[in-house]
């Protein structure tokens, strides 16, 4: 590690040279009572340097050049202050901040931060805060984000969903929380992302390849969750969130408490959600030609619950910030009882229809534990960051024992796992990242970093899909940003990754009759032999930003890669939920993608339009190809699906426009389109699975002036038109187009001294019956949820404690 640090320092100092340091900017940041504010963030533009005030509230910048600067001071719970300065020598600028009544989660994204992303990042990024999430609250985090251009979700019932960026999902999208890659069972289509949406404070969606910063898997994009918030000194506060949803009778609450005394702070949060079976606007579901009647429009056994706990604590010093994030996200939810996956099932109607809130077989239980330390050191032109993470993901799928294939008709009572445990995935993940950023001069910024991850995956249960495995991956990168002129920026980065996977052998726990020359021999079939593979990849990215007053242009071109996962290399089992026998390919090579991204944005006083097209080519996309064959011994008579690689071309983009009709009435439009085509292999000419259909969202928002005790009122209407999706691959079904209307309104209400925020939504206002092409249940013709009323109330509280 020492030698690596040395290497980082060497790399980043090569480009530095002696500059006169006679230009200094310092000052004191104070609160409303003129008391020093330690820990406030001071940002200096355009040099993009940030420092944190010390115990006396003092900040200091050493600068390379005289000239015009903008200083931006922010502190949690206070209004952000911005000052334009003309610095000609040693200057002292004191800044006073005034509090605003808000919760930890209501921190507005610092304006200059958004500006920086818009103008100085060559990638296309969508930024979202908790206010957006509460106004668009869906059943799960990804569902709430679906409104963002280029973002779609794969849904599993009402409380679970998986992210998809421009038509790529599963292991091709990385979710990063506080710098650590979230690791669950991303490859599975029947469970969601284990993130508590009430704990999300700030979220960024990076569309397009981002292997440079995060290595393997970030081929389609990144969803990055960040917790910036640190409570202000000598305060105790928090918030209570209460939420209700009519469609699945969801009730939930999330409570947070925070406090800080000098340099130590603590934030706690607990969330509890409980929901019943969700309702669809139909009284029966046609699973193939089999019609399953629904009771009371309820999707039988799709109830669920979630219990989450978060703690964050740390030390805030002038040039040093160390934070710990510990969380446990736990969910239990039922699967639609009339079909386990795509397989129709007879249902004990009296048992299931007794209550809409109970959970019977089949159901799943997922627990995700996460502990992260993130430490930052800031010293003159250096910013060093380290992240260490431990995660434990446990997923269990429970169902009544059914002897599939050659399993014994009765479950033997001497097995090491219970009869109802269909599958278990038990995963331990250790991660470490180190990153150093050096502001070389006011034109150049260099970042280099190293990341490592170790995974230990165990399996259990009667069903076999993937073998147990251990996996190591590591990578190093260097990235530079250079200001060419006042309005153009150049980015360049390279990265090297290494990965190794060790797959454990697996044999069936039951015997199968193997037809040999000596007649039928009963054997415990070997599903996976021991297998070890190493992978390495060299990736790069180059970007360019061109910013004029009213026009922004960004271009990014890069190479990304993805290591094949255990399932792709070594699957050898029947997915009874899909009538498929899935066979891995131990010879797969890492998936390589090249992508060109363009972003243009034109803004004027009343109008803004952004267009973000992309062109993407995979030289060897890993694809689970449904063949025309059946297998009787290993596949129990099911159709064989082979993992293969093919060339794939994808393109598409998003268009986003706003128009201020009057001061208080705004109109908007978001359009998205993705086209994919396989250029080689068995499915040449076919699309890719789960291709999102084109859509346009028309939006109208009324934002009247505050009146009486009502602040920030809004009334919005979304009209989303989705085209039909006729580009399908086996075993998909074509999906017809549909139109959905969503309504939302809310405000901040100030009654006496206690403010609270109220958000109300009507989703699917017209109770449309439609099929979402991206739903896990699409293949058995389950329509989307019917009309739903959603209410969210947030009550913040905030007190000063003895100063």
């Amino acid at each position, binding site marked *: 590690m020492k030698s690596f640090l040395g290497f980082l320092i060497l790399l980043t100092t090569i480009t530095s040279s002696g500059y006169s340091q006679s230009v200094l900017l310092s000052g004191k940041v104070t609160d409303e009572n003129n008391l020093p504010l330690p820990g406030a963030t001071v940002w200096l533009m355009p040099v993009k340097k940030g420092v944190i005030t010390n115990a006396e509230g003092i900040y200091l910048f050493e600068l390379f050049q005289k000239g015009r600067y903008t200083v931006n001071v922010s502190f949690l719970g206070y209004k952000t202050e911005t000052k334009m300065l003309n610095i000609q020598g040693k200057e002292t600028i004191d800044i006073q901040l005034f509090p605003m009544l808000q919760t930890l989660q209501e921190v507005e994204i610092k304006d200059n931060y958004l500006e920086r992303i818009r103008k100085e990042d060559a990638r296309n990024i969508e930024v979202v805060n908790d206010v957006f999430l509460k106004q668009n609250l869906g059943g799960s985090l990804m569902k709430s984000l679906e409104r963002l251009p280029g973002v779609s979700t794969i849904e599993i019932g009402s409380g679970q969903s998986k992210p998809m960026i421009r038509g790529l999902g599963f292991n091709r999208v990385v979710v990063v929380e506080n710098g650590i890659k979230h690791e669950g069972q991303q490859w599975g289509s029947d469970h969601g992302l284990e993130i508590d949406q009430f704990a999300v404070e700030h979220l960024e969606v990076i569309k397009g390849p981002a292997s440079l910063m995060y290595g393997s898997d970030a081929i389609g994009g990144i969803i990055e969750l960040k917790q910036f918030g640190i409570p202000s000194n000598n305060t105790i506060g928090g918030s209570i969130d209460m939420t209700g949803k009519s469609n699945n009778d969801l009730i939930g609450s999330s409570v947070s408490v925070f406090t800080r005394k000098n340099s130590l702070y603590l934030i706690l949060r607990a969330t509890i959600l409980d929901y019943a079976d969700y309702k669809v606007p139909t009284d029966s579901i046609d699973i193939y030609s089999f019609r399953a009647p629904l009771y009371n429009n309820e999707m039988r056994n799709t109830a669920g619950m979630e219990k989450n706990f978060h703690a964050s604590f740390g030390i805030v010093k002038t040039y040093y910030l160390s934070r710990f994030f510990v969380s446990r996200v736990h969910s239990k939810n039922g699967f639609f009882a009339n079909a386990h996956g795509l397989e*129709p099932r*007879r249902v004990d109607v009296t048992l299931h229809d007794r209550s809409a809130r109970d959970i019977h077989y089949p159901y799943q239980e997922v627990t995700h534990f996460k502990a992260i330390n993130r430490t930052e050191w800031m010293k003159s032109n250096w910013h060093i960051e380290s992240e260490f993470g431990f995660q434990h993901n446990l997923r269990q799928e429970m169902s009544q024992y059914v002897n599939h294939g050659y399993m014994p008709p009765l479950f033997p009572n001497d097995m090491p796992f219970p009869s109802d445990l269909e599958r278990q995935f038990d995963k331990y993940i250790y991660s470490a990242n180190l990153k150093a950023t050096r502001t070389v001069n006011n034109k150049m910024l260099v970042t280099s970093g190293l990341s490592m991850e170790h995974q230990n995956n165990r399996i259990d249960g009667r069903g076999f899909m993937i073998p147990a495995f251990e996996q190591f991956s590591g990578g190093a990168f260097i990235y530079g940003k250079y200001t060419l002129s006042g309005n153009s920026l150049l980015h360049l980065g390279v990265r090297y990754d290494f990965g190794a996977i060790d797959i454990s052998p697996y044999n069936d726990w039951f015997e199968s009759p193997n037809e040999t020359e000596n007649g039928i021999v009963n054997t415990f079939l070997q599903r996976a032999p021991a297998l070890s593979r190493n992978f390495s990849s060299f990736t790069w990215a180059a970007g360019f930003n061109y910013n004029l007053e009213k026009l922004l242009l960004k271009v990014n071109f890069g190479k990304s890669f993805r290591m094949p996962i255990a399932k792709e290399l070594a699957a050898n089992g029947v997915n009874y939920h899909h009538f498929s026998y899935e066979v891995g390919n131990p010879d797969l090579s890492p998936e390589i993608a090249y992508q060109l991204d363009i972003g243009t944005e034109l803004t004027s006083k009343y109008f803004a339009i952004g267009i973000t097209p992309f062109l993407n080519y995979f030289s060897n996309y890993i694809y689970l190809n449904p063949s025309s064959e059946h297998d009787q011994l290993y596949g129990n008579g099911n159709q064989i699906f082979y993992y293969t690689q093919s060339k794939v071309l994808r393109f598409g983009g998003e268009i986003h426009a706003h128009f201020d009709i009057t001061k208080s009435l705004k109109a908007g439009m978001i359009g998205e389109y993705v086209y994919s085509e396989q250029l080689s292999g068995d499915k040449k000419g076919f699309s890719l699975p789960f291709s999102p259909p084109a859509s346009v969202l028309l939006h109208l928002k009324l934002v009247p002036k505050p009146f009486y005790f009502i602040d920030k009122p809004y009334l919005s209407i979304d009209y989303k038109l989705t085209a039909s999706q006729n580009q399908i691959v086996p075993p998909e079904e074509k999906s017809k187009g549909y139109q959905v209307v969503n309504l939302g309104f809310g405000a901040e209400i100030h009654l006496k001294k206690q403010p609270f925020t109220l958000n109300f939504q009507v989703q699917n206002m017209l109770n449309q019956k439609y099929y979402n092409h991206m739903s896990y249940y699409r293949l058995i013709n389950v329509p989307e949820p019917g009309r739903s009323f959603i209410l969210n109330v947030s009550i913040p509280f905030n007190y000063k404690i003895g100063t």
Partner: protein
Amino acid sequence: MKRYHFLFLLLISFALILACNKEEIDDQKPEIDLDISGAFPHNCDSIYFDETFVFKAIFSDNTELGSYSIELHQNFDHHAHSTEVITCDLSPVKTPVNPFHFIKSYTIPDGSSEYVTNLEIEVPNGNDNNDFDEGDYHFFISLTDKEGWSTQKGLNINLLRRTVN
């Protein structure tokens, strides 16, 4: 600036050319038809131990058929996956002792867009352990076409032993 406009135009024209040049792909599933004369078994039919029956169905596809498989397994617990609209009168739920189990995959001659099965399946009376259990069984047919589209059909049948007259 002009260069980027050019790049953008290039991208769009490329997309358009591609979208227009797309060749037709097969997106039709194959079909399993049990409506021809002599088709067997139908939902709720009976099959007898120690006898051979002929599985007769007509398979068709818009281009070319792939392969098929037959699976026969007990449904004593009424776990279902029948794909049929008609429900049969089932015997009471019971615990399996020595159920009959049959899994086999079959090829279809290359180039066939229509295929009539005339498959003889022998149902033995028992195995080394004992006689097979009588009762409710599932007869599950899976059919693919060359492109990998598939169709499944699950029938409820009775497996019975003929009483000696």
